[in-house]
């Protein structure tokens, strides 16, 4: 492994061949400013179009400045990263970007989190010398994502995520020259395109061009309306990231403080989506076992492998791109929708409130959940099971708005009966978590024996495509795991060609699973944050008294009092759904 020796800012540097100047400088503590460059370390996601030209540096003997992000080191190179010529060029380039950028930072959703804003401050830009025409594009509001392309700086991150990582292909660069921008086909709205709202474009967009639809206003109105009973459910991945918005180290668990904050915001009942996650395991686990026993019993046209269905972006993905496989995934609804459906029937009767006066708000690490709760089939004559889905970021905004000092809050519990959850429910938030939770329950129900170990480490990790075989008392069960829709596509193509030997497959649209969702605090391209959030969920799981979904007392009570048994007629009506062929949208 040959090393390259060079000098950066008069300091000797020795790095591996193939390292970029940007990384070589970083290794000796020199931070070269960059805008469009992004690299998620072990998710092998890298965006280096070399388009923004902010990271240009001076290389001795080269006629013009070189972009540090995509110029590899060469033996004996002499580089000045912060010479006056490089700084002047950088300032002019950012001035040029600002000259074609709206100046409404005051009301922009990304203010304070915008890479362009911090770059302009870092470079001390006080005046834009080159005013002129600004490119303007039609604003587009879809159920989950708002596109304000006037703010697009053409960094191509969203195009890369949508095509190379998610393989959805909803976005592409269009036009040429000054009006070149990233947009769906025929500049149509997102909801006319194949977009699955996975939100990965929102997660990586450096400016306010792509943001989630803001529902904080609607929630505030509901909370301030005395005639409404407002209840909230919080998704598993939120508790491992919310703290970052208040300065906590990534991966700090804030479950207790979160419940306390929600109570102070005025929610009548503070519940936990993990409760519905346990419910999902019961329903989905049973469905898996039914198919397995049928398969073992010789039924040839049973649909195997079974695929998880809790990620709405993944559901919309196969409805658009693999309509012929739409009866293979589990028919179970996602935890968010199961919660809503139970809340507006079982719980509403319990507290004697009409479903129209019961407002269900969900806190999600994801923007696709905003789309999911707006789907036709998840409402009863116009009244949706889940009224609003807020992202982790929006919840943090609400907490700041209400001037709650988050860090000094005491830890509080969730309310009952829909606040109680098991360790299996918590790990829903990470890739490999849903299937591990399902295995814990399915094993005991199928074999009738107690689990000797609870931690299935072979199902854990960050690689995009993983598989493992679990021994169900002599019967080998093959399990596949994919996160990132690009990886999911590979498994689906195997299924289409009948080459897939898996029994069950867990699929999550976002790299890392829900902890890397489009609604989470911005990771600005640092993959370490995702790993720490994952560890936090596994920590909370191992700390829980009950760690298997079917041992959740409130779930058993729910079945006794209301649902009867998993996959019962009533459970089917309230907790299951069907899918639609959207390939001709």
């Amino acid at each position, binding site marked *: 492994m040959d090393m390259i020796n060079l000098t950066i800012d008069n300091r000797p540097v020795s790095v591996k061949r193939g390292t970029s100047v940007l990384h070589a400088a970083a290794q000796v503590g020199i931070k070269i400013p960059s805008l469009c460059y992004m690299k998620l370390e072990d998710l092998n996601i890298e965006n280096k179009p070399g*388009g923004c030209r902010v990271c240009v540096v001076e290389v001795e003997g080269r006629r013009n400045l070189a972009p540090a992000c995509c110029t590899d080191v060469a033996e004996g190179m002499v580089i000045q990263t912060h010479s006056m010529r490089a700084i002047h*060029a950088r300032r002019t380039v950012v001035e040029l970007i600002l000259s074609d950028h709206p100046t409404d930072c005051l009301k922009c959703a990304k203010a304070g989190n915008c890479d362009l804003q911090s770059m302009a401050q870092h470079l001390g830009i006080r005046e834009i010398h080159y005013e002129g025409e600004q490119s303007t594009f039609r604003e587009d509001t879809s159920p989950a994502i708002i596109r304000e392309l006037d703010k697009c700086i053409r960094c191509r991150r969203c195009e890369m995520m949508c095509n190379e990582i998610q393989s959805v292909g909803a976005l592409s660069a269009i036009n040429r*020259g000054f009006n070149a921008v990233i947009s769906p086909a025929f500049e149509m709205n997102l909801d006319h395109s194949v977009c699955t709202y996975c939100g990965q474009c929102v997660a990586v967009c450096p400016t306010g061009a792509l943001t989630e639809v803001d529902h904080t206003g609607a929630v505030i109105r509901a909370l301030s309306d005395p005639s409404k009973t407002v209840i909230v459910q919080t998704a598993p991945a939120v508790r491992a990231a919310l703290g970052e918005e208040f300065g906590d180290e990534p991966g700090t668990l804030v479950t207790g403080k979160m419940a306390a904050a929600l109570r102070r915001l005025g929610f009548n009942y503070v519940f936990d989506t993990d409760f519905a996650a346990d419910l999902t395991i019961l329903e989905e686990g049973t469905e898996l076992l039914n198919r397995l026993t049928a398969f073992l019993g010789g039924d040839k046209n049973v649909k195997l492998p079974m695929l998880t269905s809790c990620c709405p972006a993944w559901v919309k993905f196969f409805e658009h791109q693999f309509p012929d496989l739409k009866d293979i995934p589990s028919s179970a609804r996602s935890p968010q929708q199961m919660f809503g459906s139970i809340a507006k029937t079982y719980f509403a009767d319990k507290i004697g409130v009409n479903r129209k006066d019961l407002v269900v708000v969900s806190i999600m690490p994801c923007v696709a959940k905003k789309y999911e709760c707006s789907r036709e089939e998840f409402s009863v004559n116009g009244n949706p099971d889940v009224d609003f889905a807020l992202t982790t970021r929006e919840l943090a905004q609400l907490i700041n708005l209400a001037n709650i000092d988050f860090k000094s809050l005491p830890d509080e519990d969730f309310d009952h009966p829909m606040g109680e959850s098991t360790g299996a429910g918590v790990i829903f938030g990470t890739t490999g978590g849903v299937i591990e939770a399902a295995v814990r329950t399915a094993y005991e129900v199928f074999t009738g024996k107690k689990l000797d170990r609870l931690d299935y480490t072979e199902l854990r990790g960050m690689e995009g495509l993983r598989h493992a075989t679990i021994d169900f008392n002599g019967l080998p069960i093959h399990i596949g795991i994919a996160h990132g829709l690009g990886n999911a596509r590979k498994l689906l193509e195997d299924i289409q060609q009948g080459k897939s030997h898996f029994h069950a497959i867990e699929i999550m649209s976002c790299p890392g699973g829900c902890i890397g969702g489009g609604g989470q605090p911005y990771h600005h391209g640092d993959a370490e944050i995702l790993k720490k959030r994952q560890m936090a969920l596994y920590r909370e799981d191992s700390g829980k008294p009950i760690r298997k979904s079917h041992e959740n007392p409130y779930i058993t009570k729910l079945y006794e009092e209301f649902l009867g048994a998993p996959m019962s007629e009533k459970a089917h009506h309230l907790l299951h759904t069907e899918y639609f062929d959207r390939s001709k949208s």
Partner: protein
Amino acid sequence: MADYKMHLLVCGGTGCNASDSEQIRDNLLTEVEKHDLNDEVQVVMTGCFGFCEKGPIVKILPDNTFYVQVKPEDASTIVEEHLIKGRKVERLLYKDPENNEPISDSKHMEFYKKQVRIALRNCGFINPENIDEYIARDGYAALAKCLGERTPQQVIDEIKLSGQRGRGGGGFPTGLKWEITSKSVADQKYVVCNADEGDPGAFMDRSILEGDPHSVIEAMAICGYCTGSTKGLVYIRAEYPLAIQRLKTAIKQAREYGLLGDEIFGTPFSFDITLRYGAGAFVCGEETALIHSMEGLRGEPTFKPPFPSESGYLGKPTTVNNVETLASIPVIINKGAAFFNSIGTAKSKGTKVFALAGKINNVGLIEVPMGTTLREVIFDIGGGIKGGKKFKAVQTGGPSGGCLTNSFLDTPIDYDNLISAGSMMGSGGMIVMDEDDCMVSIAKFYLEFTLDESCGKCTPCRIGNKRLFEILDKITKGLGTEEDLSRLRSLCKVIKDTSLCGLGQTSPNPILSTLDNFYDEYLAHVKEHKCPAGQCKSLVKYTINHDKCTGCTLCFRNCPVGAIAGEKRAPHTIDNSICIKCGVCYDKCKFDAISVS
């Protein structure tokens, strides 16, 4: 059958101050009449000899006497001395500049023919759709020699020795480029002929492909042999239907003759060529953008290295060469590197084809050895400025080049001189401009072109060029300030310094070179709000000269916006606030009563 014994050819080229030549011809005719030789001697007007500096010229056949700077009154001496007494008129003979000896027979005066045709050697000679005619002129002999007698490395060395450099504009040594690709290891390599020719005002690639497609095919095969590629691709503009059709015929014939396809000449070397079409994107002239376009993608360039020679089309090593670069490869092999190397200057060898156009008499395709001066190209071959106007500047290198003024006319043309003169070789478009051209609007024209053709991927080119254009637009509308000029220059420098590809790195050149050479013109626009050349519409003022205006109301009737007022047969006036400066009145007025200021 030849009843005329003698022919007197009088150069009638518009360059040779045409009025004199007609006068000379008439005098010669009357003299021939006077000595009743008119059934033995014929006087004929010809086109331009390409030696206008020494015009008007009279050439006498069959003894090939070449008289220069002939005046109408010399006609009688020529007839009496030369035709009747058979003695040549010494003082009119051309004096060889070295030894000042008069040259009587123009056969030895090869040197006044400034052009040397290598890339264009077959154009206008062979029928491009008949492979036999190409073979008759040593076609495919070079390929045969390479396959039969030489190793790839020997051929590469020959090309390196010849000093051939890329004719697309970059000037990268061709031999070196082939060598790098030959050294890259891959299961499949490609040879690409770049026939995108996006430069406006450049059409030499088209003429070569239309006139002599086989020389390009043969050169691509040779390149394939040297670099170890078995597949050739021609990336050609969709705007050249005839060149595409001729290329297809030539490829088909070459395949029928076994000169393309498997085991050429019975050797293990196989090579075939397919076409890829451009679709109207100037940026696709850049190597990496071209490769993306061939892969069916948007023609957006990517950073280099990696250079296409290491990883290009479909990620495989690819050699990209311009049409003109390839066309002279067979000659280098057939006549040897030394022959090619003997032509041109120290660092720029061989010849360059120029598309001479603009305000010039002999618009045309010329091929001159490197080192020829601009003066020879414009005033000799080009026949001087059209309509006898004054030369102002010549623009080389298209939207990436700059303009050269009088003081550069004697600069020998080669890659490095042009760059140090603030322009560049480019693909060879050479647009001549005269006193009526406003250099600010020329710079604006090129910026508008770059604006339309920028791919929009990188900030300096996408937004920077737009701002440059807006500043220039302000200046041509008389709204510019002096501070704009300094801002223009500094933004140009940053764009050149930071753009991702050649298009952005060179788009400011037209501005910088017009700023350097015509700063006073910029000042006139900015300070006095006047356009010296009268081109910038909003700065032009049309006024009616009252003593010349007869009140014929022609201008009044034709003015599209009704800006002209006046009674019949009384002098009219133009209201400049309404006038849109379309110039219709100026063209229509028969009494030249309307002046432009």
